[in-house]
């Protein structure tokens, strides 16, 4: 790339750049050759960066007013809502921002699944991405505990109790996590500390994620390797920056809709009741973005089995690049996999819905079917379809409508648009 050729024009710039090549880095980032056919599903990387920065900034301000103590946490949140200037705005941005963050990350992950962005040579980008997702879940869970409402308290109780399923040492580990013999003030204190730490870990991983991306360059909707730079690429700035900005603004309109007109619709009303260890809520449910995994957890009658299955559901994603045996990246050219992709989307949505329902009767049955299918998709469907599927012919390049097998490009384009 352009690092080697880049020379700052000014003397001072050259002096500085020779010692710390920040200007070369800036030049690399602006010139970075990006496939010109990226569609709007590719704008979520930028949107996610915005989400992370927003959460960090609003979070730092909230931490200036929040008190991490079991007796004071709830009232300090009310103090933020009532007495801190624009405290309500900052808090609603932060709480709805978590939901928006997950909405964007799910779209980002499913985009990767559809266009095969996790495949060689991008496995490391994918693995770092899954680690970011894992940390996001930890951060979100601990953040939800901080207001110390009923759902905070009981959600923390349910999730920390999962570790007690570990044979022999489970009980001790749970007590160690709590710092007490139940979820109590020490638990709240450490959750606050970790909730402040994790976003910066995520930030570090995001830098690695982007660094790893800039080695092979972006995948694209056609999924073929392209020459960079070439007539198939555009410089990142201004072409991709303005497109990302446009998508980000659309996203912000939806985000603001929640913040200003329905700030509590994504939360649970029970969390406005102060935590009470003596009263258990009728249904303990996590936030919507954790529901699919909660459903998987509850689908198994055995506690340890449920915990193992739930963590497997996430960790299985780490080996995804080696489970998918197809050499073709984009689903645009994979007629069979494409069907299974959409079934997986429906399956995860179904699991999410079931996670919010009581685990009994028809719900439990459907949850089990959904859980089995989730694992079948990764362990059976992906490897087998990769071998058996007859993929459509791929184009030679993005600009070149010639297909290696001679099928016509308009078909590929049509499919591409329908996504």
């Amino acid at each position, binding site marked *: 790339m352009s690092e080697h050729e880049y020379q700052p024009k000014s003397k001072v710039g050259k002096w500085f750049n020779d010692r710390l090549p920040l200007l070369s880095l800036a030049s690399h980032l602006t010139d970075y050759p990006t496939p*010109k*056919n990226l569609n709007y599903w590719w704008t979520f990387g930028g949107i996610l960066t915005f989400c992370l920065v927003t959460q960090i900034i609003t979070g730092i301000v909230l931490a200036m007013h929040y008190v991490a103590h079991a007796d004071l946490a709830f*009232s300090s949140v*009310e*103090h933020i*809502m*009532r007495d801190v200037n624009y405290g*309500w*705005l900052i808090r*609603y941005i932060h709480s709805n921002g978590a939901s928006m963050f997950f909405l964007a990350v799910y779209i980002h992950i499913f985009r990767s699944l559809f266009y095969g962005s996790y495949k060689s040579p991008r496995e490391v980008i994918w693995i770092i991405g899954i680690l970011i997702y894992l940390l996001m879940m930890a951060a979100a869970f601990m953040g939800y505990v901080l207001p110390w409402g009923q759902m905070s308290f009981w959600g923390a109780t349910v999730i920390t109790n999962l570790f007690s399923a570990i044979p022999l040492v489970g009980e001790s580990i749970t007590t160690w996590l709590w710092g007490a013999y139940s979820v109590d003030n020490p638990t709240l204190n450490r959750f606050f500390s970790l909730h402040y730490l994790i976003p910066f870990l995520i930030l570090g991983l995001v830098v690695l994620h982007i660094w790893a991306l800039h080695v092979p360059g972006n995948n694209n909707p056609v999924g073929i390797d392209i020459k960079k730079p070439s007539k198939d690429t*555009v410089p990142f700035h*201004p*072409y991709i920056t*303005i*497109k990302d*900005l*446009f998508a980000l*603004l*659309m996203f*912000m*309109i939806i985000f*603001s*809709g929640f*913040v*200003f*007109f329905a*700030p*509590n619709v994504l939360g649970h*009303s*029970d969390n*406005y*009741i102060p935590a009470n260890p003596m009263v258990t809520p*009728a249904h303990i449910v996590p936030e919507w973005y954790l529901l699919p995994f909660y459903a998987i957890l509850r689908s198994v009658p055995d506690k340890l089995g449920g915990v193992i299955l739930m963590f497997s559901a996430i960790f299985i994603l780490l080996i995804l690049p080696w489970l998918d045996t197809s050499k073709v990246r984009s689903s645009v050219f994979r007629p*069979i996999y494409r*069907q299974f992709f959409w*079934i997986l989307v*429906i399956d995860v949505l*179904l699991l999410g*819905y079931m996670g919010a*329902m009581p685990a009994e009767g*028809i*719900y439990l049955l*459907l949850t089990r079917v959904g859980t089995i299918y989730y694992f079948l998709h990764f362990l059976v469907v992906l490897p087998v379809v990769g071998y058996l599927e007859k993929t459509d012919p791929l184009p030679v390049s993005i*600009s070149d409508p010639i297909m290696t097998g001679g099928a016509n490009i308009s078909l590929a384009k049509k499919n591409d648009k329908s996504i």
Partner: protein
Amino acid sequence: MIKVFNIFFKTLIFSFLLSVKTFSAEAIDPIRVDWSFKGLTGKFDRSSLQRGFQVYKEVCSSCHSMKYLSYRNLGEPGGPEFSEKEVKAIAASFEVTDGPDSQGEMFLRPGRPADKFVNPYPNNQAAMAANGGAYPPDMSVLVKARKGGADYIYSVLLGYVEKPAGMILDDGVYYNKYMAGNKIKMPKVLSDGLVDYADGTNSTEEQMARDVTTFLSWAAEPELEERHRTGVKVMIYLILLTILVYLSMKRLWSRIDTEV
């Protein structure tokens, strides 16, 4: 192959719809009220807020605390907007425990606008002892803390009907149509003419329920009016900016042979 998927798909969707239907049949829907504070530009009805405060002060506050509110809030914009003089008079009508003084003694003094709403009971245990073991919940964020919000609170206030034949209720437990489980430890408190409204409004049961619910909604979300106002401005700004950015993007990308 495709056919198999189709069938699988339709079964999934069907069972999904079925489960949605069975679930929603469980709870009784609260009465839907056309609140003035609903919607994108919703505002509180000022006189209803003032009447609602009167109902709270004369009826609810003998059992329910409202500890996150201060008397000064009653005069702030977006709320009942009592005048400064009225707020001072309201605050002064309550006795606040202050101290310790220079002798180390706690003492009582008339309330000031900066004071928090006075609790009816010295502590939770006293509140429970006085109410048959049930703790009257703090009302500061009650509307946000109940599924169904203002509609639900309004419905419960008006939901005291004759219990179904054969149902046995313990002493101090009352039947309520809208309460989860239909059992409530709060007796029916509202009855026609209970409060003499300062503005002369006829104090029917529905009127009082409506006014006090409006007041509680404001107490839970004192920022609501400002939030709606700011929200509308933010939306207009974002939409205009989006249009400008869209046009710039189109112009920039016209140099490239790809659609955006």
